[in-house]
């Protein structure tokens, strides 16, 4: 895949050009749209489709955006609505399709994602969509509970309880599945922990024990 470093597609325009300004805003926020989409979908390709649809929708609806308000939250709202209307529940349909990733030639990014797919990432697939999005917005995206509530179209208290439940659920999932890789400090025998991590994360080991990996991912 050919990529270009983020940068303006056209020279920046003047303040008398609201469409140009709006587009510059979109351009700047593409990386965040991709990140939010990926955390909702799990699958990088489906996520990028979703992010692109969001851009088109945003452009078509640009007259409804109030300049000076939070463009990022506005875009995330569109992306989220699109996700639900498309029912792109890739996390649930296929938590991670290792075989498909290996078949794609030159899918280095996807492979990197697979290799890096941590216990936490896999555990995310077990959360409800509502809990996952709340946790991502607040825990990773840096949104306030208020902004997250606006994006998710629900009460602030609802977001708070979803985030709390999501955290609790993740911990119990990770506790149920072996020594927690990310909390390596706590394990008494580092060798055991390292072996467990290698077993789960190393691409070679993953291929060798694919059945085992899939089983643990679906648990």
């Amino acid at each position, binding site marked *: *895949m*050919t*990529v*270009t*470093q*983020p940068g303006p*597609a*056209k020279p920046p325009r003047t303040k008398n050009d609201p*469409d140009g300004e709006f*587009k510059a805003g*979109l*351009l700047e926020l*593409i*990386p*965040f749209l*991709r*990140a*939010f989409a*990926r*955390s909702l979908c799990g699958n990088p390709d489906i996520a*990028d489709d979703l*992010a*692109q649809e969001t*851009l*088109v929708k945003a*452009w078509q609806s640009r007259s409804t955006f109030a300049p000076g308000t939070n463009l990022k939250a506005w875009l995330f709202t569109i992306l989220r609505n699109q996700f639900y209307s498309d029912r792109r529940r890739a996390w649930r349909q296929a938590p991670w399709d290792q075989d498909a990733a290996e078949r794609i030639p030159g899918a280095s*990014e996807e492979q990197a994602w697979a290799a*890096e797919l*941590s216990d*936490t*990432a896999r555990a995310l697939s077990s959360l409800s969509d509502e809990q996952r999005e709340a*946790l*991502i917005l607040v*825990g*990773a*995206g840096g949104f306030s509970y208020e902004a997250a509530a606006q994006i998710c179209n629900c009460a602030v208290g609802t977001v708070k309880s979803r985030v709390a439940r999501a*955290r609790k659920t*993740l*911990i119990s999932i*990770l*506790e149920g599945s072996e020594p*927690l890789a*990310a*909390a390596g*400090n*706590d394990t008494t025998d580092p060798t055991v922990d390292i072996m467990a991590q290698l077993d789960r994360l190393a691409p070679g080991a993953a291929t060798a024990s694919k059945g085992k990996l899939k089983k643990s991912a679906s648990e």
Partner: protein
Amino acid sequence: MSNEQKGDREKNRVIRVRQRAIGRELRRMYDNVVKEPVPDDFLNLLQKIDDHEETTADEPEER
């Protein structure tokens, strides 16, 4: 302090450590995508939106 209290304290400490670890991991995953270079598809899409607008604007109105 009773052994039970010590146990509770230790349990809470472990939960806090794990919550922090999960938080770090979530941010790492998200930030990794944010840091990726934007694929050309996205830039082409924005370009196309513009061209499309200009083309439609230039078209004479139908009567």
